[in-house]
């Protein structure tokens, strides 16, 4: 006989069922009772829409620019706009944002200028320098490397007694890394004001979620830390906004961290160097590109609310496209900084040896008339 069959103090399996917060369903229908109780006014709805749309246009444009060879490898975020916009709009000026590499809309919303992205995608030094007035860490290329850093950032805010919450972005694949675990554990031990916002786009390059983890959800991983875990429809901007807002309130009022799993989908390839047709079906992508698409869904909601204007949409689309085109055309004439200029950034002051190396390079570059 098995112990589990006979014993009263049965070992717990600690199993949980997935469950997902949704306010706006896939047909663009809102849960009315609920929606009325939320503090989301029309202005905010339009702001949400604007950013989702701007994000979509930006993304399309940058993919095109890459195809034209005008920028380097580009990582598309199409499909994830609602998760990014919903969470980003819940973040306040005094808060900190600790991104991975895909949070383009989050960055734009919080004041990272377009120019940074041009620099970055054209390989200029300084493209990952967040502007002084934006509380944001640089783009992170090491999966999950930013997670313990975000925890440290929140820890500093707490120690300094500042009213500031740190939001850390990462993907489903990042949850497999040791740094995810170590970071969340630290956050839970010190009850830090940090929100872990996971965009579960269901793929880590070619690896689907079921090859990535044995758990049915990412939210349930919060249990390991005695932390609050929330699963939300990541293509429902209203739910994302609300869930993020509540998590930040909790963090702000000293009630510790939250792990949010925003279930969404990457519509494009991992980057322009990737080809999604190698590992997933057209049907799957179609499903998410239509019925579940965050832009389409939110538009039909706005239509119901009488807030949609196709002229306004067209205006935004061409504004964003023009802005990028103009900025890029201008930027294409900018000569990248010479390599030796970066030597001042390895340390606060380059030592003598490094100065010699810098001078050597400078001399050569100058001698070549560059």
């Amino acid at each position, binding site marked *: 006989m098995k112990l589990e069959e006979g014993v009263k103090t049965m070992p717990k399996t600690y199993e949980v069922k997935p469950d997902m917060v949704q306010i706006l369903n896939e047909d663009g229908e809102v849960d009315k009772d609920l929606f009325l109780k939320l503090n989301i006014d029309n202005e905010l709805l339009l702001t949400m829409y604007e950013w989702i749309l701007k994000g979509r246009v930006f993304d399309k444009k940058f993919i095109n620019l890459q195809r034209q060879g005008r920028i*380097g*490898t580009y990582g598309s975020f199409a499909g994830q706009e609602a998760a990014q916009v919903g969470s980003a709009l819940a973040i306040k000026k005094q808060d900190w944002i600790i991104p991975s*590499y895909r949070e383009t809309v989050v960055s734009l919303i919080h004041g990272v200028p377009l120019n940074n992205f041009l620099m970055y995608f*054209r*390989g*200029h*030094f300084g*493209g*990952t320098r967040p502007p002084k007035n934006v509380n944001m860490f640089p783009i992170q*290329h*090491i*999966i999950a490397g930013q997670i313990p850093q975000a925890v440290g950032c929140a820890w500093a805010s707490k120690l300094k007694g500042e009213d500031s919450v740190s939001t850390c972005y990462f993907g489903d*694949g*990042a949850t*497999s*890394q*040791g740094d995810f675990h170590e970071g969340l554990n630290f956050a839970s031990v010190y009850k830090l004001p940090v929100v872990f916002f996971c965009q579960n786009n269901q793929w*880590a*390059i*070619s*690896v689907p979620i079921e*090859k*990535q*983890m044995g758990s049915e959800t990412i939210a349930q991983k919060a249990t390991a830390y005695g932390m609050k875990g929330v699963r939300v429809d990541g293509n429902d901007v209203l739910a994302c906004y609300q869930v993020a807002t509540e998590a930040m309130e909790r963090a702000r009022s000293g009630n510790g961290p939250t792990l949010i799993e925003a279930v969404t989908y990457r519509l494009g390839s991992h980057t322009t*160097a*990737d080809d999604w047709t*190698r*590992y997933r079906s057209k049907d799957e992508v179609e499903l998410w590109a239509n019925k579940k698409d965050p832009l389409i869904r939110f538009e039909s909601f706005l239509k119901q609310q009488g807030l949609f204007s196709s002229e306004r949409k067209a205006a935004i689309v061409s504004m964003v496209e023009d802005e990028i085109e103009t900025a890029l055309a201008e930027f294409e004439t900018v000569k*990248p*900084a*010479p*390599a*030796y200029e*970066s*030597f001042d*950034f*390895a340390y606060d002051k380059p030592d003598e*040896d*490094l100065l010699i*190396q810098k001078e050597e*390079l400078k001399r*050569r*570059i100058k001698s*070549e008339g560059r």
Partner: protein
Amino acid sequence: MAKLTMVEAIRQAMSQEMEQNERVILLGEDIGVNGGVFRATEGLYEKFGENRVFDTPLAESGIIGSAVGLAMNGMRPVAEIQFFGFIYQTMDQVCGQAARMRYRSGGRFTVPIVIRAPFGGNVRAPELHSDSLEALFLHTPGLKVVIPSNPFDAKGLLISAIRDDNPVLFLESLKLYRSYREEVPEEAYSVPIGKAAVLIEGENATIVTYGGSVPMVKKIVEEYKTKGIHIELIDLRTISPLDIKTIKESVEKTGRLMIVHEAVKTGGVGAEIIARINEECFYSLAAPIVRVTGYDTPYPVQTMEDDWLPNEARINEGLVKLLSC
């Protein structure tokens, strides 16, 4: 005999060893269905199935740690680390574990794993995707470190690595993956680990290099030849153990040595070669040994990398210095 690119030769080596020995398995991120982000394992998942080729979760320490356990229990895992810059996440499992397990267990266990990782610059990759960190492993007893520079060696060395009973780090130059094709024998063959190759003979000076820099240096050496200056070109092929004998023999002949590598200068492989030549044949040296390497800064952004890496201008400048005194 077919003409293969380096990445094709690497793929063929894995495929043939997997056919030959069912204990050989592959694991890594995106190496299965997707065939690897550089297609090094393309077709192997289809050919050998999901019990031989594993798409793993995104966790490099987990990949190497489980490879160590797999090897200790009889398998011969070939693990791919998607970019060498991510080797940092695995340092304990590589240097603290795999490299020491034979020693720790007094010979009871061997850890026949191969860790493949693409590396090197000039390919316009993002941060930490181009770094050359091989010197960290030169400083780690218990490991072998192999770096091929052409399709023929890549196949033969990878076969040797898979058959080797020690943990082997196998570094694949990104820029050489598809840069050219050459004749590669169809059958499985091995190129010995630990032996450098004299690619061009000469008596006026010696250049030692490896991996992605080899073709560039070769071109320069050939240009010098037309000017009547004969430089001996040595492709290290293995970083650890270092084939100091071949370098020494060359330096005894030429009296002048230059080392070219992409890794940052301070504490790089070049330093160890200089130290050894100093110890082995100090009196043969006619001039200070010259290093042409990455500068001592973090690997830079794409618009700066060609200036930062060893390039023709820098090597020529170094040669002027080397040959003038």
